[in-house]
């Protein structure tokens, strides 16, 4: 003979293993909460920052993730094209080898001839322009009358 309680509990004994797993999960949640409570202010602020980031991710990014993915792809393409162009320019610059000293001499030769012919290279430097202070207007009028 058994009581209703005994019958009921024995009828469901086989589920005890699953209930143990649930118990462990629930106790683990308690441990997590305790760790959070015991955390230092720095850790707490870090957790708060993580929470904010997660919330932003969930509320901002996730609802329109296709749009964000499209924008991100466009930016990646723009950066890739830009990088490719810059690299091409650099390669083109590298391809321009500096002229040899003979070529440079040949290029400078006509310039030297012209200087010799003109003689400008031997002329002394011109004096800097003199600074003349303007005379008073009354004196200027006298000078004009005299002339």
């Amino acid at each position: 003979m058994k009581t209703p309680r005994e019958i009921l509990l024995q009828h469901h004994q086989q589920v005890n293993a699953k209930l143990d797993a649930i118990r462990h999960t629930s106790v683990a949640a308690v441990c997590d909460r305790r760790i959070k409570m015991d955390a230092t202010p720095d850790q707490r602020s870090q957790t708060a920052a993580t929470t904010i980031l997660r919330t932003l991710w969930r509320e901002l990014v996730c609802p329109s993730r296709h749009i964000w993915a499209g924008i991100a792809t466009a930016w990646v393409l723009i950066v890739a094209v830009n990088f490719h162009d810059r690299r091409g320019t650099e390669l083109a610059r590298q391809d321009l080898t500096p002229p040899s000293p003979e070529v440079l001499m040949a290029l400078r030769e006509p310039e030297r001839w012209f200087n010799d012919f003109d003689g400008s290279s031997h002329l002394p430097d011109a004096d800097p322009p003199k600074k003349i202070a303007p005379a008073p207007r009354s004196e200027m009028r006298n000078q004009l009358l005299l002339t």
Partner: protein
Amino acid sequence: MLVVAEHEQLPVAQARAGEPAAWDTLFRRYQLPLYVYVFELVHHEQTSLDLVQETFIAATKHLGGLRDDDKFGSWLFGIAHQKCIQRWRRQSRDELLRDEIHSAPEEFADDPSELLIRREQEAEFMNLLDQLPPLQRAVLLLYYLEDFALEEIAEITAAQLGTVKSRMHYAKKALRKFLEEK
């Protein structure tokens, strides 16, 4: 023999302090009776397991709302009951309303451990339990599983004491009829 311990000392105060070992003890004590209660109301294993887990998580979050540590058991069953009600509401309210009978019930002074069922009657007992309207079944389960007082059952099920007495009356009447017939 499984018997509900009288005035058992449960580490509710330690659980309030967030001690995982205390929670483990509390959950270990109530996990099977709570599961049986929920399962006999929803009749689905996975749903029952989910509801038990939800009850445990809710308990860890809201223990601060429990005023009397001695009422931890009825408080925990109350959470589970509310979760079952929410589940029922999603399905249908029809079955719930079947047992709202407002006749004056007789008082019950008998002890749940006094009712003894023979081995050959166990399966029929479980079948009879299934046939009872859900809220009568809930009252009977709380009475048999944890030996809760009618007042506590009223608190758990958020019902008037008179309504609980009425439900208990009709549930026990059906059970007696079944035992007399056998």
